[in-house]
């Protein structure tokens, strides 16, 4: 059969092209532009080639903040995923408890990020904050503005408080989509609670959990606002995560070239990890 050639359809794609160009391509290209040049303001540029990239990749400062970033993301994933799944498993499946739990769970997600940071800052202050004061009166030597261990502890606790709900809600949705007959069939088989979790619930939650891991990875790897308000990257450089460091370099020191190179490397790392992870997880999917 002959198809009539009709190119009018392209017109419908134009709005998307324009939008994407303005919110993604143009800003990204500006950054690419900066990353290969040296500028001292007043629109004077000098070509530098790959110098900034080489510098960043060999800089110890970058290695350190990248390392901190990986450790942070790893820890919060390690806490939030099991915790989120565990909470979702214990949530009621019907009755008045469902809306109550769902609303309680959504609360932390609804609070603006810098408010979360400010809240936790006050909450954890060693002298007047409820958390800080309680810990100290219990005999712990706790001061997140002075001791790096405490700063890490507080930042992680804050992130767990803020974002575990997301994992809970996604897991809960996944669990709720399992038909009751699965549980009955397992019961008839004589399967244990662990078997039910391992062989029914976990495989059935695979897709939502993949999504949860991706979202939590991206968000935590790019975390900025909350630690900025809470610790400002301190004490010293203890909680100076990648995006905090980037902003310090770009706006604090006005090193636009290296900062641009760093953001591109940063962007590629996130992209690469997400892509590899997603491809691995979805290897067996797609067939129905």
């Amino acid at each position, binding site marked *: 059969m002959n198809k009539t050639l009709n190119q009018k359809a392209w017109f419908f794609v134009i709005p998307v092209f324009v939008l994407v160009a303005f919110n993604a391509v143009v800003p990204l290209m500006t950054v690419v532009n900066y990353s290969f040049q040296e500028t001292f303001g007043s629109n004077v540029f000098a070509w530098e080639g790959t110098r900034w990239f080489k510098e960043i990749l060999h800089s110890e400062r970058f290695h350190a903040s990248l390392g901190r970033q990986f450790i942070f993301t790893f820890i919060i994933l390690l806490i939030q995923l099991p915790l989120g799944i565990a909470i979702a498993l214990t949530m009621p499946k019907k009755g008045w408890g469902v809306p109550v739990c769902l609303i309680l769970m959504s609360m932390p997600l609804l609070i603006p990020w810098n408010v979360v940071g400010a809240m936790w800052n006050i909450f954890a202050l060693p002298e007047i904050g409820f958390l800080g004061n309680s810990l100290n009166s219990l005999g712990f030597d706790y001061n997140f503005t002075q001791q790096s261990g405490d700063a890490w502890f507080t930042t992680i606790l804050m992130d767990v408080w803020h974002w575990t709900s997301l994992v809970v809600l996604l897991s809960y949705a996944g669990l709720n989509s399992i038909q009751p*007959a*699965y549980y009955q069939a397992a019961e*008839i088989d*004589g*399967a244990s609670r662990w*078997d039910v979790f391992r*062989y029914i619930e976990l*495989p059935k939650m695979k897709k939502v959990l993949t999504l949860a891991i991706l979202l939590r990875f991206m968000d935590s790897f790019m975390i900025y606002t909350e630690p900025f308000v809470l610790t400002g990257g301190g004490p010293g450089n203890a909680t100076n995560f990648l995006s905090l460091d980037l902003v310090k370099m770009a706006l604090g020191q006005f090193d636009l070239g290296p900062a641009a190179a760093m953001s591109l490397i940063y962007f590629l790392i996130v992209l690469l990890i997400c892509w590899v992870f997603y491809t691995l997880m979805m290897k067996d999917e797609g*067939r129905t």
Partner: protein
Amino acid sequence: MSLELKNVEKKVGIETHIHSANLKLEKNTINVLLGSTLAGKTTLMQIMAGLDKPTSGEVWFNGENVTGKEVQKRNCSMVYQQFINYPNFTVFENIASPLKITGVNSKEIKERVGKVAELLKLSAMLNKKPDELSGGQQQRTALARALVKDSDLILLDEPLANLDFKLREELREELPKLFEDRDCIVVYATTEPLDALMIGGNTATLLKGKIIQYGKTLEVYNKPENLTSAKVFSDPPMNIAEINKSGDTFKLTDNNFQWKSAVKIKDGFYKIGIRPHNITTYKEGNNSVEINGKVLISELSGSESLIHFTNGNLNWVSLSNGIQQKNIGEDTKLYMNTDEFLYFDQNNRLVNHG
């Protein structure tokens, strides 16, 4: 071996899901629970399996009171309307799963799974995962899992409902054969009268949580104890009308239509039930009566024609063989096979006639 329900009742809150059910199922039988959705089929099965406890009454198995005994300690298996398999197990592992849990050695597992897989035509798919299979194959896997266990009680809860027409027919034909030489009681729940007829065995008709009638399938179909049972076991729905009999004259009280018949029942008022296939566009049987009808709807299925028609206040359905082209609003002649009429008394009980 036998399964007996004694005055089993199930209440959830203020709602009664099962009204005092009494049922005795014998060894080596297939028993169909026939009823529309919410008739209580699934609840009844869950009570039989031990997945649910009756509010009152007892369940006896092999002369032992098993009310409240957990499902794991009974030897039963169940197949559902949805295709329930372990999602990341292969077909082999799925079929083997109930055996593994009970600790059967791997050599025997292999043998038994192989046998069942062959029976259900799954031998070529043992290494595939459920989501690589068609719906029919997924349900075959679930059936295989139920069969491999050598259960005393196999419960099938509308197992064919989610399959498309072709697969349903194919599997429906195989089902009775699968259970032929098995030492077990099979319970099969369905909403479709045709399923019950094709599977045979015994049938219990259910309506709103009550067991209406239980007996040999053909007997329940041919001699429904009462009007309710007849209605449940009729698809398309049965035509019902009130009649007045005096002498050999039978008269519909609604529209004065009358006919003569030699049926021997006392004079008086009755309800008649006429199955759609006993009203046809052609004469059938020796005692057919002609009736005029105005065509409301005519549906052709290829091998059969379903004609809805009115006559006075009546709004009836007829089912004829072959393609009977009728136009909407057309006046047509239909023939009722009076030999097949069912007569019910004022209490809706079937009247035996000679």
